[in-house]
Each structure stands twice: as C-alpha cells, then as structure tokens.
C-alpha cells in the first residue's frame, strides 16, 4: 500500500529543501501542524485588522452626525470589516483548527495531500495580502458615475482609507459594478475573494479525502469525533458552494474589466441575479462559519461535564441536516427584493425548518451538561457562552423567517445584532473555547486560567453591550450601513453603549493576546492529558511530535481514549481503570520514542512558488490595459506553470538510505507517502 517513490531522474528546478526548522523550515513545510499554526497566526492578525475596522465604525456611530470618518471611509471600513472577518478570520482560523486537529483526531500522520495543504495556505496568505494591497495601489475613492455623468466629491473627502473596497462584503450589483464603483477597489475585492475561495476549495478536497481515507484502524465514521464530522460537513459545503461564488465573481470581474454586461440592467443584465448567486453561496457560507465552532463546542462540553456527548448521532446528523437545508434558504436574504409571494413563502418555510436541527443541537448540548460534573474552565465558559448566545441569535433568526416581520427588520441593525450573536457569540466564542482547549496540544503548556476567565467575562460583557442594543436600534428604525444618523432620530444613547461595548471587547482581545504571549513561554506545563480528555489527539505527547503518533493508534469505540482510561460501574458511573496510568505512560513513551522510523511528507518549495504567481496574475488583470499589467499576467502565469511542472516532477519523497521496510503496514494506518 505504500506508494514509495521510484527513483526518478532529477528533473526538478530546485533541490529538495532539507531544513525542517527555522525560516526555510516554515516556508517549505508540508506538516499539517505547522501549516495550521501559520493559518492561525495569520487569521488572528486579520482578526485584529477587522477588529480595528470595527472600532472605527463604532467611533463614527457613537454620536449623531459624527464627522470622525468620511462617508467613503465608513463604507470602506464596513466593507473590509465584513470581508476580513468572514474570509480572512473565521474561515482561515477554522482551517487552522481543522488542519492542526483533523489528522490528530483521526489518528493520521498528516492530511492526504500535504503539499496541496501548503499550497492552500500560501494562496490564502497571498490572497489576503493581495486584497489589502489595495491600500497601496488603489486610486482614492472615485465617486460613482456613468459615462458623461459622475458624482462629485469634496476634495477633503479623498483619503487613502476611503480608497479601500467600498461596495459591501456582499458586493451588490450594480452598485459594485463598473459604472457605480469605477475605481480599482472593487476589483481587488472581487479577485481577492476569488483567490481566497480557491484556497478554501483546495483545502476542502484535501480534508474530504483525508477523512475518508486516512482514519486510524477501527475509526468508523460514527466513531469520529464530532469536530471531525463538522469538518467533513464544512468541507462538503465549501466544495459545493464555492464554485457558485467563483462563477459569480468571475462575472463581476468580466463586467468590470472586459465590458461584459451580466449585471447591467440597461443592457438587459439582471442585478438580482447577483444576489441569487451570492446568497446561494452566502448562506451555506454562514454554516461554514458556524459548524467548526459547533464541532469544537461538542468536543469541549463533554470533557468538562465528564459525560459523553448526549445523542452523538443526533448531533452529527443535525449538523449534516443544517448543511443540507442551508442550500435551500438563500432567498431569505432577499425577502424585500420583490420576489414573488410564493417564493417568499417557500423560503420562509425552508428557513424555519433549519431551526429544528439547530434546536436539536442546543438541547443535546444541554443534555450533555445535565447531570454532569461541570468544571468551569475557560474553554467551558466559552462553550457555554456559545450555547447561550447562539440561542439568542437563533431566536432572532426565526423572526426573520417570518417574512412580513422581516420586511420591517431586514437591512436594519436588528439584522446586524442577529448575525453577530450567531457569528461572534457563536463562532468566535466557540473558536476561543478551542484555542484555550487545544493550546497545550500546540505548546505543551496551559493558558493561564485566571487571565482566561477575565478574558471570557470581558468579552462576554463587551459583546452583549455592543450587540444587544442593536436589536432595539434596528427595531427603532436604524438602517444598516449608514455613517450618519440625525440627532432627532433617537439613536444616540444605545449607539454610545454599543461603542463602549466594542472597546470592552477590544480589551478582552488584548487580555487574550497577553495570556497567549505569556503562557507560550511561562505557562504551566500541561503533560499529555491535561483535561482528562476523550479523543485520540490526546494520546500523544504535548507539544505534538512532528510525526503525531509514535505508533499509529487503533480505535475500538467512540471516545476511545476515555474508554481506555475509564470503565463504568453498575450505576453507569465512570471508574478509573487500574491500568490507566500505565496506558498513559506507555503512550507517552512511544510518543516520544517511536519504535519504528516514521516517514513524513517531505518539504517542498513548489507550493509557495505556485501560490506566489497567483496575486501577480491578479494585479495583472486589474491593470491589464497597461504594459506592466500584461507583463504581470505573463510572469504570473509562467510562475504558476513552472511551479506546477516542477511540482509534478518532484519525487514524492527523497529516497533515503536508512529506509526501513520493516515498518508495519496493513494496520489500517494509511501512509502519508501517498502524496499529492
């Protein structure tokens, strides 16, 4: 089963990189853990950028008719806040978790295609940089206009910040089209999001293949941890929804660059078509953002309740059902768009249906905690916070499914409140639970609990102060995406409260960063199993060795690690097995000193090289009318082509002398040598 490399003639452009540490070690790595860590740090930096944009918005809105930002700056800030948080923070940090944990949780040594994994990470990073390069290259906000008529801008309103993309993260046409957003900013947006989608698409295929092919011996599908299940569901969602946005974004780019008229009403194009395409991707996207966090919560709650997940199969199927139904509800973003009453009724009903599996999840999480022995560690607090806040977001979500009600609420701050309860109180809290829970896996140390609790309560308080008032602001009639409101509108007070809350959130994030920075060096050593955990990733030392497992694990049940440690007495209460300590010592021993040599995916220069060509093509397309633009396209294509060629010629692994064929095989452990 090992597809060991035959010796091939050395046709490669570069010699195989040898360093596994230091700068080049990170640049050329194909190790899923290193890639996961890089994903995580990059995503967190973008989180800070998006958060900074949010603070700008909140300062602007803290009082009536405020002049802190210009209209262009405000529009740019909310566009980039949304784009950054969705595509550059929540998606990649979920990818960081999946990258780091998925192979560990299924007992594998790496993902199915390690170099492809590196490729998707580098494409993500370069796409993010490409998107923000708009700050350097963009012409300042050009006012809207059609040929012959153009809007006018006070010269004082022309600023660099205002030159960022300003058509909304949803890029509604025709406002974000060639006539009404004539600068290059929205081109950066369309191509940047396109490239980010490419990165996610590559990851999704990789994760699906990994889950189906690389599980440890005995790990049947219904023995997989819920986080792995949710990763699978998310990967499938990505696989089916990303092509839609890819096509839609190509249409936008063609409209903007090459004069196609897909969305130009005057030429028979249809602006509403964009919304259908965008939300046909965009609603599954919502579940792409929340399901990894739901997976994390489903791992965290049982551990600190000392009980198995209540109704494991139901939670798994509910996740799959949410994803499936998620493809049939997109038009609830468009109840005001003038679609027919039949369509409105149908999409209202399908949207309500989604509340059922979501409710199942909530109740099963409560069932997990019921009767448990709850330890309120920081991950547990964030997980409970997730459940409590997600309920609020879910309930306000149901009020949107009530179509007539939604006609009043849509495009107001009520919606902003709703999706922040789902995406901040939901996704972000879940992800923070995961960061605290799995930090030892990465570092071998624990994050400080006191700071952690302070972190949670600050964020929890700040979050509610920021977003709860937005419910009433919306129902009071405050329209979304507005930079100004008049004093007599009555929005001042709650906006000020929300702004104060936003700064409290920021303080919480600073506490988290301090905790992370400090605990990485000085945190309490965690040992192998700090939380008395249930799943396979904790059967290997912390920080995780490069090869993950000294001996490929075999699995006999759901929560296999737990059952290795605990038996049940007559009442069904857990009793620590007498041999538990010995088992742990053995695992530690084999984890540190693997009995057999282990082959790992070899590092490679080609992923980063290939990815580097892509933004070049992007810049080239935007400036394609100039010579430099054409040159950039040419160079970019050449880089991509030559890197692909070099990649395909690169041997799967370097033949090395001490190759030991005695490594046991056929034990259900799929070899990572089956390379991309």
């Amino acid at each position, binding site marked *: 089963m090992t597809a060991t490399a035959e010796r091939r003639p050395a046709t490669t452009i570069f010699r195989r990189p040898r360093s596994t540490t230091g700068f080049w070690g990170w640049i050329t790595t194909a190790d899923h853990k290193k890639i996961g860590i890089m994903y995580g740090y990059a995503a967190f930096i973008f989180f800070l950028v998006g958060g900074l944009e949010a603070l700008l918005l909140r300062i602007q809105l803290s009082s009536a008719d405020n002049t802190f930002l210009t209209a262009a700056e405000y529009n740019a800030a909310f566009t980039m806040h949304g784009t950054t948080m969705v595509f550059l923070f929540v998606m990649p940090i979920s990818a960081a978790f999946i990258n780091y944990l998925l192979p560990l949780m299924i007992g594998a040594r790496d993902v199915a295609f390690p170099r492809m994994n590196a490729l998707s990470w580098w494409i993500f990073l370069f796409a993010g940089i490409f998107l923000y390069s708009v700050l350097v290259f963009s012409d300042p906000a050009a006012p809207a206009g059609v040929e012959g008529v153009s*809007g*006018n801008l006070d010269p004082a309103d022309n600023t660099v910040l205002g030159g960022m993309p300003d058509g909304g993260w949803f890029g509604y046409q025709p406002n974000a089209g060639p006539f009404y957003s004539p600068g290059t900013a929205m081109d950066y947006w369309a191509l940047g999001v396109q490239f980010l989608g490419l990165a996610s698409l590559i990851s999704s295929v990789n994760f699906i293949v990994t889950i189906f092919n690389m599980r440890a011996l005995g790990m049947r599908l219904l023995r997989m941890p819920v986080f792995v299940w949710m990763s699978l569901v998310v990967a499938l969602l990505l696989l089916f929804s990303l092509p839609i946005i890819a096509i839609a974004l190509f249409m936008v780019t063609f409209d903007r660059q090459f004069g196609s008229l897909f969305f130009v009403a005057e030429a028979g194009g249809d602006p509403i078509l964009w919304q259908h395409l965008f939300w046909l991707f965009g609603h599954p996207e919502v579940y792409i953002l929340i399901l990894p966090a739901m997976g994390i919560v489903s791992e965290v709650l049982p551990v600190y309740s000392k009980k198995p997940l209540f109704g494991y199969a139901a939670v798994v199927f509910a996740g799959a059902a949410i994803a499936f139904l998620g493809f049939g509800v997109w038009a609830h973003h468009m109840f005001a768009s003038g679609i027919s009453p039949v369509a*409105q009724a149908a999409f209202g009903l399908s949207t309500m249906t989604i509340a059922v599996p979501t409710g*199942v999840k909530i109740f099963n999480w409560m069932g997990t905690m019921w009767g448990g022995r*709850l330890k309120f560690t920081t991950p547990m607090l964030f997980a409970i916070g997730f459940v409590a806040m997600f309920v609020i977001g879910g309930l306000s979500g149901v009020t949107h499914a*009530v*179509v*007539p009600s939604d006609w009043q609420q849509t495009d107001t701050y009520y919606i902003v409140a709703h999706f922040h309860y789902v995406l901040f109180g939901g996704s972000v809290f879940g992800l923070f639970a995961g960061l605290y829970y799995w930090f030892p896996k990465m570092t071998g140390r624990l994050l400080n609990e006191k700071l952690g609790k302070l972190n949670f309560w600050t964020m929890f308080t700040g979050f509610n102060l920021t977003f709860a008032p937005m419910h009433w602001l919306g129902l009071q*009639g405050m329209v979304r995406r507005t930079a100004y*409101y008049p004093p007599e509108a009555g929005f001042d007070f709650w906006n000020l409260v929300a702004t104060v809350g936003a700064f409290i959130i920021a303080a919480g994030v600073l506490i988290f960063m301090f905790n992370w920075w400090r605990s990485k060096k000085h945190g309490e050593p965690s040992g192998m199993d700090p939380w008395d955990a249930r799943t396979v990733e904790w059967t290997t030392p912390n920080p995780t060795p490069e090869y993950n497992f000294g001996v490929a694990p075999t699995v006999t049940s759901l929560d296999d690690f737990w059952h290795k440690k605990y038996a049940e007495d007559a009442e069904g209460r857990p009793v620590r097995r007498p041999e538990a300590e010995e088992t742990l010592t053995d695992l530690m021993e084999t984890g540190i000193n693997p009995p057999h040599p282990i082959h790992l995916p070899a590092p490679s220069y080609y992923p980063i090289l290939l990815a580097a060509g892509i933004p070049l093509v992007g810049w080239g397309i935007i400036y394609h009318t100039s010579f430099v633009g054409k040159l950039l396209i040419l160079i970019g294509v050449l880089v991509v082509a030559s890197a692909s060629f070099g990649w395909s010629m690169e041997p799967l692994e370097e033949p090395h002398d001490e190759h030991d064929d005695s490594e046991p095989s056929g034990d259900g452990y799929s070899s990572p040598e089956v390379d991309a």
Partner: protein
Amino acid sequence: MIWRHLGRLIRPLIRWGSLVALTVFSLAACSLVEIEDAPLTTFEPAGPFAERIDAVFWQVFWIAVVIFVVVEGGILLIVLLFRDREGRKEPRQIHGNNKLEITWTIIPALILTVIAVPTIQGVFDLTECGDDAMPVEIIGHQWWFEYRYPDHGIESASVLAMPIDREVCAYMTSADVLHNYWVPHLMGKRYLVPGQETTLRLQADEPAEYWGHCAEFCGLSHSLMRARVISMTQADFDGWVAAQQQYAVPPAPDTPAETGLKVFQEQGCTQCHTVDYGPDYQGTNLVADEFFNGPNLTHFASRSVFAGAILPREGQSWSDGLREWLANPPKVKPGSFMPNLDLTHQEIEDLIAWLDTLK
C-alpha cells in the same frame, strides 16, 4: 505574586461588571417598551399594513420570549445544579435518550408550524396591491426618491403626499443602483431595482408626517438618502393635487428672484432640473435633458424637506438649509451629482429668492 494581587483586584471588577451589564440589560428590556418617539420606529404602525406586520411580530416575539426564558433558564439551572463541588459523585454516563430527543425535535417543529401560518397569510395578503389603489411611481436615484402621480400628471421629489384611508400602490424602479423604500410607520421594505418594477402597498390612518429611509446600501451617500411621507385628508390631498398641477409663476421683473432665475439658467442647472412655466412662457425652455435627471423643481418650495429629505436639518430654517446646500452640495452629500458651482454669496441669495417663488 503579582498575579494573586491582580486577581484580588480583578475579581470584584468582574462581579461589578456583570452587575452593571445586568442593569443595562434590564434597562434595555424596559426601553423596548419605552422607545416610541424615534421617528423611524417600527413599533408605531400608522396604517393597516404596518399594523398587520406589527401583530405578526408580537405573536412571534412572545413565543420567542417563552423559548428564550425556558432555554436560557435551563442553561442557568444546569450551571447552578451541576457545577463541580466537593463530594459530588462521578456523573452517570448517559449517551442519549431517544424519547427525549424525539420530543425536542417535534416540539420546535410544532411551534414553527404555528408561526408559519400567520407568516404565509401575511405574505399573500400584503404583497399584491388592491384593485382600487391609487398608483404612484417611485423612482430611486442616488440619493433621493422621485415621485410621479400618473393619474394626476405630477412630478415631485423627496416628499410623498398621500390621502389617508386610501391604499397607495407604489410602482417602483431605480434609475441607477438598488434602493429600498422604507417608511416603517406604513409598511415594510421593498427594493427599487433598475430595469425592473416592484410594487409596495402603503396606507395611512391619520394625517401626519412620517420618516422614511433608503434601506439598501446604494453607494457613497446611502446614509443621506431619506424620505418623508405626508398623509392628509382626501380634501387636503385634492387641494394639494390642484396646486401641484399649476404651472410655476414666472418671477416679477427686476426682483432678486428674477436674477436668481438668470443664475439658474446661466449655471446650466436646467441640464438636470425642470421648472415648468407652461406653454405660454416667453423665456428659455427649462426642461431638463432626459439623461441628466435631477429633481423637478416646479413646486420646490411646497416641500417640507429637500436634498433627499436631509435638509433643512432639525432647527434649521429653510433658507439656511438652502444656503448650506448651494454653497457646496458634495460637502453636504458626498458623491452628489450636483456639483459645487462655486456660487457667490449674492448668487446664492438670489437663487433662494427665486426658489421661494416655486410654491
């Protein structure tokens, strides 16, 4: 050491912080009932359509409140009951309970079925205009609403006049990007889509002035695209229609108003703005180029607000509002299609004198 001290400092902070948060929350909950003076509030429906939506909202709201209390109360209860304490036994390892799980699948499904009924009825009852509704065309522009009354031959802007107790059917489209017409007291929102026609039902019970706002992001000055609706008795409305159907009256010779008209013509304002002096008017034609579309100014001075219903500001006089606007429109409304014409103080005063004649 430092950490212990810090902890001692921080713990009361957390406790007090949570208390403050709780208080703010209770206040907020009270204010949910209190907020009624906001001019865009959705809680003061003033016509049958908005009332219908309001009724549906409250039905669902109270169901949601019950679920909220049950679920969040359940979470709190679990947290209090089952927190780890000395001497607590290890928990029993329960993997699930089919009966329970089926129950909490079916109950939400039933609740949703209950909610679905008024939803679907509401959608079908509120979408299609009634047969004897009065038609009004609403055209969205960056960043103002244009109103046309096809039955009466009237063109207006920024302020929609309508009779009470009579359904108005708005036939809407957009001249540029997506807009969204929203007057919360009268009805929910509906898009204005370039190249398409959407309809919206409006009806008011009492004579009053209502605020509206464009609710779909429509570019640079989306924040400043507002609307006003004035509902009046049928008699008042008939009077309004009669006045609007008049031609404008040319200014008397040798008045500031006449100078203002000259400024208007010389500055090229007629490219975009129409002022209808009727077929007998001797002066230059004042009909805007079809392509360059600005508000029709024939009865400009009869409107309570202008420039997308943002001027005059609260407490600002009509003339001061005009002074602010004419001095530099893109400063008031970024991206405005009306350019800064660098008008002199005198030109602005003359223009205001003339605009005041357009009753």
